[in-house]
C-alpha cells in the first residue's frame, strides 16, 4: 500500500505539471510536496524518499499541533531493555507474564520512532549495535556457564535446550527491531538481524563447545553399535544444530562432525574385521557384514543427515569387504570355491550383493567362478576319456552311448551354471563372460580321439535322426541345438573329416516333429522341413495370405502350392483356407485351424506326390528333341538334298532303335534347324531341303 499511496501522492502533487491539471490542491504541504515527488514506486522508499518521509512526519506532527517527542537514546534503550529482560526471564522459565500485543507494539514503535527521528537523533546504528550486544551479553552471562558445567549426555541435552531458546530469542528480538531490517540494514547491505542473532550463538558457544559435542555424539553412536540403547531423538536434535548453525551451508556439519564420524567408523570396523576374519567362516562373515551395513543405513535414517549415507556406507564396505576381499574369498573351507562346490546359492547371492558395491569387487569372484566351471567341465571330459579307454574292444559300438552321456552332462552343467549366473549373480555380464570362457576351455579338449565339437556334432545328428533314447520335446531339442550351435559345429566337423566334399543341405528331405496345440489336445505332426517352416509362420500371426506366405518362405510358387495343399486340402486340415475349395489360388487366405483334432496323438502329414510322370515326359521329350536334331543333320549332311517325306522316313528309321518319333515333332525340329541355318528350303520347291555347310 505504501507504493499505491506514493503513486497517488505523486499524481496529487503534480500540480505544477500542466498535463495533470485536474487535481485540486488541498492543504499546504510545500516541503512534503516537492520532496515526495521524487518518491519511488517501489515498496521500500529510496534513500531520498525515506528522508522525505522523515521530514513529512515532522511537519505533519507540527501541523497537527503535536510535536513528536524526540526519544533520547538512553531513554529509548532503557525501555527496550525492559522488554529484553522480560524475554530472557521467560526463556529462563521464571514466572513472567506473556507479552501482550500492547507490549509488542510499544517495543516496535520505540524502535520505529528512534529510527525515523531527524539526525542527530536517528539512532539506527546504535540500535543495531545494541541488538547484537544484547545477545552477546545474554550468552556469555547465562548460556555459556550453564553449558560449561555439564558433560556428555547432560551437556547435549542442555545444548539442545539452549539452542531452541536462542532461536526463540532471535525471532522475538528481530521482530521488535524489525524496522532496522527494512531500511538501515538493507541500504547499507549489513548482516540482517536474524543472521546476526544466530551468528552470536555460533561464535560464542558453538565454536567453543563443538569438539566436546562431537566427542559425546560419537561416543553414543559407538555405544549403539555395541548394542546399547541410546536416545536417538537427542542425537537427531544435536546433529540438527550442526546443520542449522551452518546458516545454509553444510560446512559445519561436515567439518566439525561428519569427518570425525567417518574416521571413527573406519577405526571401529577395521578393528571388528580383524577379529572376524580370523574367527568366522566366509558365509558368517558376510552375514555380519550385511547386517552392519543395514544397521548403518538405519542409523542415517534415525539421526544422521541424509548426505552422510553414501560416505558412511562406503567406509564400512571398505573396511569390511574391500580390505579383506582376498582372505575372505579364498578361505579354505568356506570361501568362494567351497560355496560353489557345495551349491550354496544363498551365500553366493549374498557374496554378489556385497561385492558388487565395491569397485572391481566382482572380478575375483568371476574368476573363481570361471575356474570352478572349467574344472567341473574338465572333470567330465576326463571321466568320458577314462570310460572310453576302459572299454573292452568288442564293446566299441557302445562308444556312441558314452559320448552321448558326456554331452548330456555338459548340457546339464551349462544349465546349472546359467541358472547361477541369472539368479545368484543377477545376470551380470562379467559372469556370463566367465561361463562362456570356461566352456570354451574344456569344449576344446578331446575325448577318446574326437574333439568335443565332434561329439556334439554326433550328438546332434543322433537327435535329429532318431530322437534318441530319451523322449525330448521340441523345446529341449532346440535348446540342445542352440547350446551346441550344431549346424556350425557340424559343418566344421564335416570339413575336418572330408576336406574335398561340399556340404549341401537337402531341406526337402528333412523331417521335423512339431507339437501343435489345438483346442482339443496337442498333436505331434511329422512334417517336412518346408512344411514345418510354413506352420511356424503361424506362430507369429493367425491369418496369412498366400502372397505373404510366399514372401516369407521365399520358395517357388509350385512348392508353396504343394505345401499349402498338403496342409489345408488334404486328409488333415491343419490350416483353414478361404475360400474352402480344394485348389490353391494366389488369392487364398489361410488360418490356423485350432479346432482340428484326430484320435491319434501323432500324425504324419505327407506332401502330395509330385506329378513325376509329367516331369519325366518333359525330360524325355527334351532328350528326344536332341536325338531328332542329330539324326536330321546326319542324314542331310550325307545326302545334301532331300525331300520332306523322304527325310522324315529316314529319320524314323534311324531312331527306330531308340524310340518312335512323332511326325509333328520331326517337322518342328526341321523348322527349328532351318532357323538355325543348318538347312534351307529349295527356292523352287518348298518341300525339298538342302544342307547348309
Amino acid at each position, binding site marked *: 500500500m505504501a507504493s499505491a*499511496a506514493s503513486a497517488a501522492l505523486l499524481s496529487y502533487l503534480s500540480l505544477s505539471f500542466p498535463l495533470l491539471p485536474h487535481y485540486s490542491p488541498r492543504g499546504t504541504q510545500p516541503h512534503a510536496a516537492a520532496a*515526495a515527488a521524487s518518491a519511488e514506486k517501489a515498496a521500500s522508499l529510496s534513500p531520498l524518499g525515506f528522508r522525505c518521509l522523515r521530514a513529512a512526519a515532522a511537519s505533519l506532527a507540527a501541523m497537527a499541533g503535536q510535536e513528536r517527542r524526540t526519544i533520547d537514546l538512553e531513554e529509548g534503550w532503557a525501555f527496550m531493555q525492559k522488554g529484553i529482560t522480560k524475554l530472557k526471564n521467560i526463556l529462563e522459565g521464571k514466572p513472567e507474564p506473556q507479552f501482550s*500485543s500492547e507490549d509488542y507494539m510499544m517495543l516496535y514503535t520505540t524502535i520505529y520512532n528512534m529510527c525515523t527521528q531527524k539526525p542527530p537523533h536517528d539512532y539506527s546504528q546504535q540500535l543495531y549495535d545494541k541488538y547484537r550486544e544484547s545477545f552477546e551479553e545474554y550468552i556469555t552471562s547465562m548460556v555459556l556457564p550453564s553449558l560449561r558445567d555439564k558433560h556428555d549426555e547432560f551437556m547435549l541435552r542442555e545444548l539442545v535446550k539452549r539452542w531452541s531458546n536462542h532461536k526463540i530469542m532471535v525471532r522475538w528480538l528481530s521482530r521488535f527491531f524489525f524496522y532496522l531490517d527494512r531500511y538501515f540494514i538493507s541500504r547499507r547491505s549489513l548482516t540482517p538481524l536474524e543472521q546476526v542473532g544466530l551468528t552470536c550463538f555460533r561464535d560464542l558457544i558453538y565454536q567453543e563447545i563443538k569438539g566436546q559435542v562431537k566427542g559425546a555424539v560419537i561416543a553414543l553412536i559407538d555405544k549403539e553399535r555395541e548394542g546399547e540403547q541410546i536416545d536417538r531423538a537427542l542425537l537427531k536434535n544435536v546433529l540438527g544444530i550442526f546443520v542449522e548453525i551452518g546458516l545454509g551451508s553444510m560446512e559445519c556439519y561436515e567439518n566439525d562432525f561428519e569427518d570425525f564420524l567417518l574416521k571413527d567408523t573406519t577405526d571401529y570396523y577395521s578393528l571388528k574385521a580383524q577379529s572376524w576374519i580370523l574367527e568366522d567362516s566366509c558365509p558368517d562373515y558376510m552375514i555380519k557384514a550385511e547386517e552392519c551395513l543395514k544397521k548403518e543405513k538405519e542409523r542415517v535414517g534415525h539421526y544422521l543427515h541424509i548426505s552422510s549415507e553414501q560416505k558412511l556406507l562406503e567406509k564400512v564396505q571398505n573396511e569390511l569387504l574391500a580390505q579383506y576381499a582376498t582372505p575372505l574369498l579364498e578361505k579354505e573351507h568356506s570361501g568362494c570355491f567351497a560355496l560353489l562346490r557345495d551349491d550354496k546359492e544363498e551365500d553366493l547371492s549374498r557374496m554378489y550383493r556385497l561385492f558388487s558395491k565395491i569397485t572391481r569387487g566382482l572380478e575375483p569372484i568371476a574368476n573363481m567362478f570361471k575356474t570352478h566351471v572349467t574344472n567341473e567341465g574338465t572333470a567330465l571330459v576326463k571321466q568320458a576319456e577314462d570310460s572310453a579307454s576302459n572299454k573292452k574292444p568288442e564293446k566299441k559300438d557302445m562308444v556312441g552311448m558314452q559320448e552321448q552321456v558326456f554331452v548330456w552332462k555338459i548340457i546339464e552343467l551349462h544349465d546349472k551354471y546359467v541358472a547361477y549366473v541369472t539368479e545368484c549373480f543377477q545376470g551380470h555380464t562379467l559372469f556370463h563372460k566367465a561361463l562362456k570362457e570356461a566352456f570354451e576351455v574344456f569344449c576344446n579338449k578331446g575325448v577318446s580321439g574326437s574333439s568335443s565339437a565332434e561329439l556334439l556334432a554326433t550328438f546332434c545328428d543322433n537327435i535329429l535322426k532318431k530322437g534318441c533314447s530319451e523322449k525330448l520335446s521340441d523345446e529341449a531339442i532346440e535348446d540342445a541345438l542352440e547350446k551346441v550351435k550344431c549346424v556350425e559345429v557340424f559343418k566344421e566337423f564335416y570339413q575336418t573329416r572330408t576336406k574335398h566334399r561340399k556340404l549341401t543341405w537337402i531341406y526337402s528331405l528333412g523331417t521335423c516333429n512339431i507339437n501343435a496345440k489345438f483346442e482339443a489336445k496337442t498333436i505331434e505332426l511329422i512334417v517336412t522341413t518346408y512344411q514345418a517352416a510354413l506352420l511356424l509362420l503361424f506362430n507369429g500371426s493367425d491369418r496369412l495370405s498366400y502372397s505373404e506366405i510366399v514372401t516369407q518362405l521365399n520358395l517357388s510358387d509350385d512348392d508353396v502350392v504343394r505345401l499349402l495343399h498338403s496342409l489345408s486340402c488334404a486328409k488333415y486340415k491343419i490350416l483353414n483356407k478361404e475360400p474352402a475349395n480344394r485348389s490353391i489360388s494366389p488369392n487364398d487366405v489361410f488360418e490356423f485351424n485350432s479346432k482340428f483334432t484326430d484320435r491319434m496323438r501323432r500324425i504324419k502329414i505327407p506332401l502330395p506326390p509330385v506329378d513325376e510322370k509329367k516331369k519325366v515326359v518333359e525330360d524325355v521329350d527334351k532328350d528326344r528333341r536332341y536325338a531328332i536334331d542329330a539324326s536330321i543333320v546326319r542324314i542331310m549332311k550325307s545326302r545334301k538334298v532331300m525331300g520332306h517325306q523322304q527325310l522324315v522316313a529316314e529319320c524314323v528309321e534311324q531312331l527306330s532303335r531308340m524310340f518312335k518319333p512323332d511326325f509333328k515333332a520331326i517337322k518342328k525340329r526341321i523348322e527349328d534347324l532351318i532357323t538355325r541355318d543348318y538347312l534351307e528350303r529349295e527356292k523352287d520347291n518348298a518341300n525339298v531341303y538342302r544342307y547348309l555347310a
Partner: protein
Amino acid sequence: MLGKGEAAGQAHLHKDDDGGEQPSGVVKLISAEGFEFVVDKKAAMVSNTLRNMLTSPGGFSETREGEVRFPEISTPILEKICQYFYWSLHYSSGKETSEFQIEPEITLELMMAANYLDT
C-alpha cells in the same frame, strides 16, 4: 534442568510458532482518538508488522490481549487502512482487479502509516 514452571513457560512461548498458521478470530485496532476497529486476524495479517506480532511465539488470549493502540494514527487513516486490508484480501487472487481509491488529501499520512505498519 527444566522444572515444571519453566516447561510451562517454554510451551507458552512455543505456541503459534510457525508463520504459516491461519489465525481465527479478530483483533481490535484502536486509533489515536480512541476509535475501535475490529477486523479479522486474517485481514490484519496484510500488515507485516501486525502479522509478526500475531504469529510470534506466545499466543494472545482472545479477550483482553487482542487489542492494539496506534496513538499516532488518526481515525480516518486507520479506517482507510482497514479498508485496504479487505481490498487486498479480496483482490489478491488476481482474477479481477479494481483500483484502490485513495483520496489525495490523505495520501501523505496514509503513506506514513503504511510505512509504519509495513503494509
